[in-house]
């Protein structure tokens, strides 16, 4: 069998992926868009990752993403993907004022590790403002805004304004 590596590479990393991504607004580039997908994303990820089932995902990360990203867009992508995929856990940990996933989020926001307790506690206080609009991306925007208004976080988190 003479399977053409290059063709397969191009086919999987370029042709198939934007189709999943095109309806996804600002997260339409990169990993987040692929992992999440519009609407049916969950089952797709489930299929992708459960051992026993499968999905051709290796090529996804063979290029950086669907888009020619700038460094900033890559940061945004990571924040969005992280927020969307961990939405339920993050809303819980923000309400609790602590948690490892929340620490992960603050890491994507460029916050110094020493700031994490302060960040978590501030997000707990801001809970109702962060979740005043539905959706993970709205929550991410609100989270960045809330941290910008926090004296320490606005200094200690390097990726709040993208």
């Amino acid at each position, binding site marked *: 069998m003479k399977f053409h*590596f290059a*063709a*397969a590479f191009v086919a999987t990393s370029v042709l198939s992926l934007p189709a999943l991504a095109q309806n996804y607004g600002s997260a339409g580039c990169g990993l987040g868009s692929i992992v999440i997908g519009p609407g049916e994303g*969950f089952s797709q990820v489930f299929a992708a990752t459960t051992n026993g089932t499968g999905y051709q995902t290796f090529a996804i990360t063979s290029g950086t993403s669907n888009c020619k990203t700038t460094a900033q867009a890559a940061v945004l992508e990571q924040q969005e993907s992280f927020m969307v995929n961990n939405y*339920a856990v993050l809303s819980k940990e923000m309400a*609790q004022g602590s948690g490892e996933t929340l620490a992960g989020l603050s890491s994507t926001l460029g916050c110094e590790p020493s700031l994490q307790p302060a960040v978590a506690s501030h997000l707990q206080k801001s809970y109702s403002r962060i979740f005043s609009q539905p959706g993970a991306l709205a929550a991410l925007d609100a989270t960045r805004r809330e941290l910008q208004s926090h004296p320490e976080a606005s200094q200690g988190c390097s990726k709040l304004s993208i």
Partner: protein
Amino acid sequence: MFRLFSCLCLFSFLFVRVQGAAAQNSPAAPSAPSAPSAPSAGSEAPDAPASSGAAEVEEPVYPVERQRVTPLSSNAVSALGAARHRARTEKLAQTSRWRRLLFITPGWFSRSKSVVDSDTFFFAPDGRVDPEAELEASLEAMFHAVDDFAAPDVHPQCRFPARFAFFKDTLGLDDAHLPKPHCAKFKTWFANTRGDGASLVFSSYYLNNPSSMFGHTFVRVHRTHAENTTASRGSPLLDWSVSFAAFPTTNNPLLYAVLGLAGGFPGRFSMMPHYVKAQEYNNHESRDLWEYDLAIGQEGVTRMLASLWEIGNEHIDYYYFDDNCAYILLALIEIARVDVDLTSNFYFWVTPSDTVRVVARVPGLVTNVSYRPSNMSRLLERWEALEGEEREFAVLFTKEPEAFPFDWGPLTSEAKARVLDVMLEYIDFEEKLALGKEPDSKWAPIREKVLRERAGTRVISRSLERKPEGERPDLGHSTNRIGVTGGLLGASGTAPSVPFGQLEWRPSLHDLLAPGVGYPPGMELDFWDMVLRYKAKSTKKTKIGAPKNAPAKLTLHKFNLIEIISAQPSTGLLSPWSWRFRLGTEQRESCYGREKSCFLSGMALGAGLTVANHTRSVLAYVLPGVDLGYSDERDMTLFGALSASSGVILRPANQVRVGLRGNTVRRFGVNGAALSDWEARLDTAVSWSTNFETRVGAGYCARAAQKETLEASLSLFRYYE
């Protein structure tokens, strides 16, 4: 015996490695239809010469389409010659480092060969089985002119960066005589994935999915971030996880099992953020994750990634038991750590937990073990932190969630926060919230209210600290088991005893009386449990399956293809279903309507409840169910049955287990006959070390209220990889 024989035939058929139709399907099924340039015709005519390579008679099938052949400069020719000479003198092709790059495994019934099935992975026509030819062909390919290829990215140096690095390391290739393609795609990919460490991650046993019952392993690459700040290094959730799993081509469960065992599905690598894997396993499937940090350093990770780039899109038939996730990942770890030997520990079966033990056994290879709890483990930990009245609120919430918000009475904010945390974990567990999934319309408004009230308390939750060392998979017994048993059989009353001896082999995995360390409590998973029994000659008439003067006899006493007991204890907050399943055949010493022993084959399915004390040192279950089967007893050729299987398992110490287990069955034959069977066994298992155990047991069984037999036995068991 005929039935047993046919049974075995079926199962050995499963192990015939069918390089079947499924393997011919395009490995990249979702995208293949939209890939007009893929020369799919190639799969129809594997031996046809490369279309553009007809200029040379001996043109091999190149992994990467070489479009023209530029002659090498004389300097390059001599450099290649010198390198080839050095490779031959140093017998480089026989080194484990080279063989590992080709993923060559020892063949137990045939030649050693690579697990990679596709020709695109090899430069030499028989590169799959001939590492020497493959080394020479690969080495030569590294010298091919960049212009020979359609794009620099498909140049052998770019397509096989691990081999290229290997040649540079071992043969001292001079850059001056080598072409220098710009490997843009590999470089971008590598910049994005590079890491400075890695962990082997074990995802705990998941009995509800046949393909996950034995656990699963994958590798987390500790990411090196472009901005080298401590903040970005902080969260392992942002690392990459590399997984190898079957890519099924059918949804039919039966075909799935057959093709899965027979290697009918291609195996595929995937690479995704670790938070996706953590969400999937912890929160969707309720499986704990154990992460073993490996001492492989940046250089090792680089080698591993380069190799992964080479093999990532290749085609590997996925055999459930050997070329599986666990094995391939060990091979990747061996590439990172050339000085350790992991894969040669395995001969026939590879279960993921065995690979974890093999890795943990190498001195210094594991530097740290961490634990990531499943949603169920988190719920239990939060629940156990509650006291008195707090528990009542939590239980009330599980019964009447609509009644929330509650009047908390005198509860402090801290106490309220603890209860609300349990409620949140309860909702997330019930709804399996993961990967952006939203709660359903019943739970969404309730969860919202609980979250707001929780945030309003301003109490910071204490972090989860439970780490059940006793369930660490590397501390558990190995999964293969071999056993020797001696005992006496007797009938009730005065009949004399008949001595018997048994040999047992069970390749996988764990039973309720086995050492509990390293396994979740209440789990039994016996796969391919096979018992041969030898009965001595009987001189007098007995009632125990041996007429007077019966000759000594060796029989297959038991063959359970699979037996599962999932005895999940109720906790006061949750009452999960416990269940069992068995498919197999068994010899009975006392049978209805005949003097000789008989065989019962079939399946049993049951569901019920389990209770346990807090430490799980006492566990009791009742699992009523139905059986279907056939036997060679009179009137019971084909039967259906109602059954109840129950047991009490005591673990007074880690080294001692006592089990009292019983089964009562009411069988209904096709012609209207009905029979009752009772069986009970009392066993005591004592471990002398992790992998060595003795069991003393006594059994009683009655058939149709008239034939009673007793059995006493002493067994020695040895677990091994």
